Each structure stands twice: as structure tokens, then as C-alpha cells.
């Protein structure tokens, strides 16, 4: 497939305007809030085992500690830097668990990036507190009630009558990374269900007094307004030739692709895949989950590419923690710490590849868990910038985007 | 700078009948003085909202509630120059 630059050159040579959507876009970093763009965050609920996702399959420590759980079926992704001590590194191979084989096409096209060793200082290994930290974007010793995405996009000017929502959460009751005031968030099983459910509401006049009543009426009218846009744009959803995996996650993926392709211009979508808390019988359960994940992401990419919206979309995974290095006595792994996460985007927006430093398996913390090599908020800073918002305001401090730290040569987000 | 009225407070004084044992104003008990009188202060809302005060006198055989409404009028009452 020709690169963006080649197409541009060809177009200029031909002296005609080219009608590729997003072709003249500025690259990964958006300078200002771009309501054409969407961020899809995928919560891997339960704590995804990073070591069996991006696999140091040649490492003898890995082979020993994961005596029965080690992954043998991998595709090499290349050489990475491993942290082996406080001041020492080594290089080694990392491979992709072949349950994620559908993602290899994206890898080859330079549309898949892996951010290694994401975690935090003094990590918390509790689901409750762990996902709370990831949702609120704080350090492990602070608490907040608003989500990192609320701080990123809340309060910014919305596109007037075209404004459908700040975020859509694709599961009815899962955790909320955009909690807080000043954002319109919809939760739904599908756009069709939302359109049907919201039909119960009718617009109401705003009361002259009583702030609480005004809040209820405003919320009501917001939903009515959103529903009108949904019905107009995605009432007849676009169809795609891509094949989505069967099951709830695949349905979520299809719904999100439909909403983006329908031009709803909603900046944030959250997908939710649960079951990653593999304390036992991890081998089959993890493989099944990764299969769904890989097929779902590949299908989203194909559908958005077909409809011309892939150039305006970024996908990232996240999870409350990784898992322990050594497997336990039940054929599974227990709560751990740092883990890699996967980022996907159009080749004109991101540089594919391995980013950061892989935690070495011999340089573990006092509990025998991986030591983080990058603060997880660097991933957030990257995502926020893709949408065109100010990451420092969202996170309360400045974090280098992935690939843009000291000594790092290639940014994840193309400028 | 012109002088203005910054606040208004109305104090009601009342007298109770011989059989009354307790007075409650808006549900809160108010002391009955030895001379069988009580008094209660009502802040007059400057916004012109009417402030209702329910005065409930409790006797063994009866309970009576009177309503007092206090209002800062936006315009002069008719009849007053």
C-alpha cells in the first residue's frame, strides 16, 4: 500500500486535488482538539499477563519460571533492550503470542506499537485500587474521583449541534475512566439498543430554579440530543466486509466501528474484555481471550480502513496490572506489576515497533515482580496528544510521550 | 454612597394560654418565659421570598398551629404614601 507521502507526491505531480479523507492531516500529534479523531481504549479486565503476550521466549529464566505456562508459539518481533540491573541492560528477543496472529498484518504495516514495561512506583496489586489508579491517572499513593479522560476532554468546546457525546462505554457496568462533571458519557450495549432505550425520553423545558432539578432536566435533554444524532447517523449502521469475532467483545468492536464510520465524532470509546484474572488454568483461558482481542482489533482496523476513518483513530489497551513472573501451583499466575500495552494506528500517525525497555526477569523487586521501566501515564500522554488535548493538564504533571523520553530515538506518535 | 437597608429581622412575641405546656416553632421547641410569653426571631429574606413560620402550641387536650408569614415587600403597600 503506498505511503501517505507517495500518494501526496503523486497527487501533486498530477496537479489535482486528492479526496482521500484525512490525507492532508498533520500526523499523529494533533495540535488542537480534533473532533474528527477517536481514541479507542480497551480495558483488559483482571490484569493481563504481559509476559505471555509479548514473550521473552528465549530467556532461560522465563522458561524455568513458566515451566508449563511458557508460550512456545510466537512470531519474533525483534530485538529489545532488557533491564538486567539498576544500571545495566542487555538485548534479547521478544515475540508475539500467536493467539494474536491477526495482528501480524498490522505489525508488518507499521501500524502496531508495543510500549514495554508500563507500570508505576509502589504498585498496588489489588484489582480495586489498581483499576482505580489506571482510571484516575494518579500515582499509587494518591486518590481522585475524576477520570484521566474527563480531565483531558472535559470543559473543552464541543462541536455545537454536532456534539453527540464525549465518550461511549461499551459495557453497561464496567469501570469508568471518564468519571466526573462536565462530560457527556453514554453507556450502551449497542447503538441500536441506545436508540431504542433513549426513545423513552422527551425534551423538557429548563426550570427557572432548583439546581438539582435543572441538572436532571439537562441530563435528560443531553440524552435526547445524543439520541437524535445517533438516529440520524447510525440508525442505519454502515456495513463492513470485515469479519468480527463472535461473542460480546466482537459485538462491541463492531458497534464502535459503526459509530466511528457513521461520523458521530465521539472522541473516546471504551471496550471491555474481561477474564484476564487468570489465577488458574491460564493456558487455555488466556489464549481464548487473546484470540478475541486480536481478531477484534484487526476487524476494527479493516472496517475503519474500508470506510476511510482509520487515519483518524488510535487504539490502546490497558489493564490494572501485569502478573507475577513465576507461575503458581494452579496452572496460573497471581497479581503482578508492570506489563506492556499495545497501541494501533494508521502508519501516517504512528511509528510501529517496540518502544521502551523490557523489564528483565533477573532484576525483580522485593516480591519477585517485574520492575516498571516507564510510568504508565506516558501512554496516557500519548493518547491525549493524539486527540489534540493538553496532557499535562489531564495528568497533573508532564510525562514524556512513548518514544520521546531521554535517549529515545523514535516517537510513537509521528509529529 | 447612599444609605441602604442591609438586613431586616422580625421578632415575634406571643403569649400562651394557661393550659399550654410547650411551644414549637417550625418544629423546634421555644422556651416559654415565666410570664407565659415566648419570642422568636425571623430573618426576612431580602429576595422577597415569603418566610412562613408555623407556631404550634401544645396543651394536654389540644394542639393549635398558627401560620405567620413574613415578607419584604418589593413595593409599598397600597394606602401608604
Amino acid at each position, binding site marked *: 500500500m503506498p505511503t501517505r507521502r507517495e500518494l501526496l507526491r503523486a497527487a501533486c505531480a498530477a496537479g489535482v486535488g486528492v479526496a482521500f479523507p484525512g490525507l492532508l492531516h498533520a500526523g499523529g500529534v494533533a495540535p488542537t482538539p480534533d473532533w474528527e479523531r477517536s481514541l479507542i481504549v480497551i480495558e483488559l479486565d483482571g490484569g493481563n499477563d504481559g509476559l505471555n503476550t509479548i514473550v521473552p521466549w528465549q530467556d532461560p529464566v522465563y522458561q524455568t519460571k513458566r515451566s508449563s505456562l511458557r508460550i512456545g508459539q510466537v512470531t519474533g518481533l525483534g530485538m529489545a533492550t532488557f533491564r538486567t540491573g539498576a544500571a545495566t541492560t542487555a538485548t534479547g528477543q521478544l515475540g508475539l503470542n500467536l493467539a494474536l496472529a491477526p495482528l501480524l498484518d498490522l505489525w508488518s504495516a507499521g501500524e502496531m506499537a508495543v510500549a514495554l514495561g508500563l507500570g508505576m512506583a509502589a504498585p498496588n496489586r489489588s484489582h*480495586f*485500587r489498581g483499576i*482505580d489508579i489506571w482510571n484516575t491517572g494518579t500515582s499509587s499513593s494518591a*486518590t481522585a*474521583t475524576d477520570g484521566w479522560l474527563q480531565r483531558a476532554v472535559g470543559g473543552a468546546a464541543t462541536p455545537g449541534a454536532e456534539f453527540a457525546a464525549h465518550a461511549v462505554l461499551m459495557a*453497561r457496568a464496567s469501570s469508568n475512566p471518564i468519571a466526573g*462533571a462536565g462530560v457527556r*458519557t453514554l453507556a450502551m450495549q449497542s447503538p441500536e439498543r441506545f436508540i431504542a432505550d*433513549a426513545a*423513552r425520553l*422527551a425534551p*423538557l423545558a429548563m426550570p427557572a430554579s*432548583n439546581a*438539582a*432539578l435543572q441538572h*436532571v432536566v439537562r*441530563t435528560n435533554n443531553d*440524552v435526547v440530543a445524543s439520541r437524535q444524532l445517533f438516529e440520524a447517523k447510525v440508525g442505519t449502521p454502515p456495513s463492513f466486509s470485515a469479519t468480527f469475532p463472535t461473542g460480546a467483545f466482537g459485538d462491541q468492536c463492531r458497534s464502535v466501528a459503526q459509530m466511528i464510520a457513521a461520523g458521530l465524532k465521539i472522541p473516546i470509546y471504551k471496550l471491555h474484555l474481561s477474564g484476564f484474572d487468570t489465577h488458574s488454568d491460564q493456558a487455555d483461558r488466556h489464549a481464548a481471550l487473546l484470540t478475541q482481542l486480536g481478531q477484534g482489533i484487526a476487524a476494527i482496523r479493516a472496517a475503519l480502513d474500508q470506510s476511510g476513518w482509520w487515519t483518524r483513530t488510535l487504539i490502546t489497551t490497558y489493564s490494572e496490572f501485569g502478573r507475577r513472573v513465576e507461575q503458581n501451583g*494452579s496452572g496460573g499466575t497471581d497479581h503482578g506489576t508492570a506489563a506492556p500495552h499495545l497501541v494501533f494506528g494508521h502508519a501516517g500517525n504512528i511509528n510501529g515497533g517496540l518502544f521502551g525497555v523490557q523489564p528483565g526477569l533477573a532484576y525483580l523487586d522485593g516480591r519477585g515482580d517485574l520492575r516498571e521501566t516507564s510510568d504508565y501515564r506516558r501512554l496516557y500522554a500519548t493518547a491525549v496528544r493524539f486527540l489534540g488535548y493538553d496532557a499535562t493538564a489531564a495528568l497533573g504533571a508532564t510525562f514524556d510521550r512513548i518514544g520521546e523520553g531521554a535517549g529515545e530515538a523514535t516517537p510513537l506518535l509521528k509529529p | 454612597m*447612599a*444609605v441602604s*437597608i*442591609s*438586613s*431586616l429581622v*422580625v*421578632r*415575634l*412575641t*406571643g403569649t*400562651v*394560654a394557661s393550659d399550654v405546656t410547650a411551644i*414549637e416553632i*417550625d*418544629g*423546634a*421547641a421555644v422556651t416559654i418565659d415565666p410570664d407565659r*410569653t*415566648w419570642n422568636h426571631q425571623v430573618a426576612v429574606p431580602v429576595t422577597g421570598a415569603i418566610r*412562613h413560620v408555623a*407556631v*404550634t*402550641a*401544645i*396543651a394536654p387536650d*389540644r*394542639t*393549635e398551629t*398558627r*401560620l*405567620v*408569614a*413574613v415578607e*419584604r*415587600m418589593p*413595593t*409599598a*403597600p397600597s*394606602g*401608604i404614601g
Partner: protein
Amino acid sequence: MSPTTSAASTAAPGGAAPADDRATPPAEPAVIAPGALVVAAALAAPLALAGCGGGGGGGAPAAQPTPPATTISAITVRVTTSAPAAIRVANVAGDGAGAVRFRLGADRAADPGLHGPEHVYAFTIDVAATDPAEGTAQGWVEVRINADPLPAAVAHVDAVGRIRHLFNRACFGASAQDLARWQDVPYARIVDQLVDGCRTTAVQPPPAWRDEPIPTSAELNAMTTAQRDARDRAKGDRIHAMKAGWLREMAITPSPLTERMTLFWHSHFVTASWDLFEPQPTWRYLALLRAHALGSFAELLHAIAKDPAMCLFLDSASNVKNKPNENFARELLELFTLGEGQDYVENDIVVLARCFTGYGLTSRKIFAFNAAQHDTAAKTLFGLPVDAGGEADGDQALDLILAKDRCARFIVDKLCMEFIGSVPGDASAWAASFKAGGYEIAPLLKTILKSSAFLNAPRGGMHRSPAELHVGLWRAVELEPSEWGGEHWQLSEEDQDLLDPPNVRGWVGGGTWMTSRTLLRRREFLGWKQWDLWNRHNPRLRRILPTLLMAIDPYDTARLDPAAYPHWDRVGGPFRALLVDPAIHLK
């Protein structure tokens, strides 16, 4: 004493309302919009008082009239001005301190400023500033005194409004039984009896598995995978049963205030049942909160610090000498007692964590103090020594926290926000009494609920939580316990998963209950419920539901208009519309 002129000269019949009125309770009160005070109606439509001496209607009483229980004899108007001034109120000069006093009755004829119907007193206020450059100002105040004591029906409405407010804010909503029971009781006494009547145990019996020992790690490892899976499934079932059971307790308890306070403390001393995934400690934790819900906050705090669920949850189980866990210490100060950054420094957290070293759990998850893990080195907290030694270090540290005024204030402010929706100026006085009285919650609650700030809080100014909406509806319509089940799922979708708050800060509440997500879920539930309730064909229910549920008038008046419905639905339609009106979400 000079009675007001009302009894002698108004058109209404003799002022006294004999107790007979209550003996023959008025027929179903005319539909009066909730919260309205029908003064005009009282005066315009004289009641025919059954049993009042003399025949016919509205005639002069035959026997000597009973003197009114109370009369208003004087009105004082105190004026504050922006600059020193001479004040005249209706031609009567002030006393120089800005107060003018009228004695009613005898003086009335002498006051040219008074006018209008006899029970209306209008005062003009003339202000002449001492400094001529400041000019003059004028103001007017009108005081209208109900000439007759309120007829029972109207007093009833006022009382009903107060009961509804009290039960909406402090319980889950009123039922018809609550109204019938309390409508003739003076408000202050209702509060006293509600608070004094609180329970320390649940109505429902504890589950059979409450004392089942928790397997040790060794015992767990010895189980087969199938056994462990079965155990996990059983644990999940038990946790769901606890959530459903608590919701049911809220609906059937004779003391809903107990459950409101238990829920309040759950949102304060947060643990999360799915995170702990051990039903027995979670059950004990809930029972602990309920036992102390209206007792002593000091005792509750001491007990919570050693509660196994709390220990597990905040990781104090791993609070060991060389690696004290600051998690518990930080949240103890930030979330449980003082508030973030209030009256403590970072080092206090470090010292506090050391005080609690050795706090841990046995392998069966029962609290145990491990002296070997306790940090015995000297500790200074808030500049004071902690030297009780051993397990008592933690208790002494808690007492040092409780000795801070800020701690009482923190709790008082939270309770004010819970019931009033704001923090009134009286809160600092209440906090001082709270602390002086040993942190007893019951007297504090009585004070708050009888306060002018609570009584005058704007009706419909706060948002109903999902529990209050659901339980309020059940209590109002007196559903049989067998008629509902599983609604804790619904509450969870409305962002209130009982026993699992969203994070350690508990539920923020207020406007966060009402979002585009939760509104749709509530609307879906209410839409389904509206047909369910209509089908109960209870005419009394239809009339009384707005009185019980609505803190303010229903808002979507278009849908309440019978004309908006086909002829066969002109009664049912407006009734069902009430249940989905925006006003139902407010209290």
C-alpha cells in the same frame, strides 16, 4: 394579656379548634399540592367544626369560647443599615439601635401606619442617614398572622410536608403508615423517636455460613481445581445474597434510619466485597457498621481499625516492622478522620503506619496482633508521644486523632452534606458539642434533623441515590418482600453497587447519581415499574403516591394532563407519568 382581635372580629367562626377535630379524622385530604401552604383557603372557607357548640354553620359559639392556645402579642422589626441612620417604622421612631417594637391589639388603633385586613401588619421603614450626604432609604415589611389556628386539615398538610421531608432526607421516603403514625406528633418528638428507635442489629437473621472458618492457604492448595472452583462459585453466590439481603433490609426494617446510617458509614469506611472475595469478613464488617451506626464514632473507629475486612482491604495485613504499609495510615487520616492535608503532615503518616505495625490476620483471616512485627521504637504523632506499647499503640494513635477538633468537624460536615446538602454555619458549634459529648452520633443526628437549616432546606434540592429511589418506591407502595428480588443488579447499573463502592472515597453522591448513563437505566426501571404498580389497582395508592414520593411538584406537567391520554387511560396515564417525572429523582 390581650388576645389578638382575630377571634372577635373575623368572619370565621370561633377561633378555637377543639380536639374533636382529631377524633373524626378529616376525609381524604383534598388533593393539595405537596409543600403548598393553603393559608387563604383556611380563611376563605370556614370549616364546619363537628361538635363545636351551637347549631348551624359558622354561627357564634354557644358556650364561652376557649381562649386561643397562643396569640401573637408583639412584633419587633429590627433594621440594619449600611450607614448610621435614624429609623422610623410606620411613624414610630426607633430606639436608636435600629429596632422598633409594636405591641398589637391595644396599640393598634393608635398606629396610623397599619392598614389592611386586621391580621395583616405592614410596616414602612424610613431610613434617614446621620450624614445628610448619604441620603435616605425606604423598605417595607409585611407580617401576616393567621387569625385562626390552622384547621386540622391544613395543619395536617404542613405536618405531612415536614414528615415527607424528614423521611425523604433521613430515611428512604415515607410510607402511608409512616404518615398515619406520625402526622399528629410534634416534629421534634418524631425526630427523637426515630433516632431513639434505631437498631444495632438487622431484622433479618444472619446467614448460616457466618461463622464458617475460612480455609488456610495450605488447605486451599490441597483442594482440587474442581473444589476450588466450587468454593469460588459459592463465595460469589454468598456475596450476591448479601447485597440482595441488605437491600431487602432497607425495605423491610422498622428503622430505615439505621440502614441509611449503615450505608453512610459503608461509604466512609470503604471495603469492596468483590475485591475481598471473602463473604464472612464482609458480613462481619457490615454488622459492625450497623452496630455502631448511631453509637459512638470513637468506638466505631477503634473497631474498624481491627476489622478483618478493613485490614485485608487496606493491606494492613502486610503492615510489618521493616516495611510499614502506609496505605492504611494515609487513608485513615485523609478519608476517615481529618480530610486531605488537614491538620497533619506527611511524616505523621509514616509514624501512624508504624503505630499499626503488627496488626494482621491469622491464616483464617481473623484479627491478630503479632508483637514480633511491631515497631517498638519511639514514636511522636502530631508532636505527642505514642508510648502505650504493643497493640495499644494503634489505639492511642486513634485517640490522638480523635482529640483533634478537626476530626469532629470532618464528620459533622459529612453528615450535614448527607442530610442537608450543605454545611450551615451551626456546624462548628455542632462539631464542638459532638466532640465534647464523646463523639456520640445519636444526639448529633437529633440536632441536625431538628435544625432550622435542615427544616428550611429547599425541598427537592438534593438528588436521590439509587437505593433511596428503589427502597423509597417499595416502602411507599408497601410491596411484599416476596414481590421483588435481584434489584441489587439494577442498583449496580445505576452506579450504586452495594458493598462495592467505585473507589476508596466511597460514593461521591449528589449530582453524580444523575448522568446520561444512570438516567437511562433509571428510566428503564421506572418505565417497567409504572405498569406493575398501576396494575395493583389500589385507588388510595394512586392518590397518596405523590404525597409520599414527591418532594416538589411534578415537573413534566404536559404528561400529567389527563387530556394527553386516550379516554380509557385518563386516570392511569397521569399516575404512571408521575413515576417517570424528573421530580421523582429529587428529595
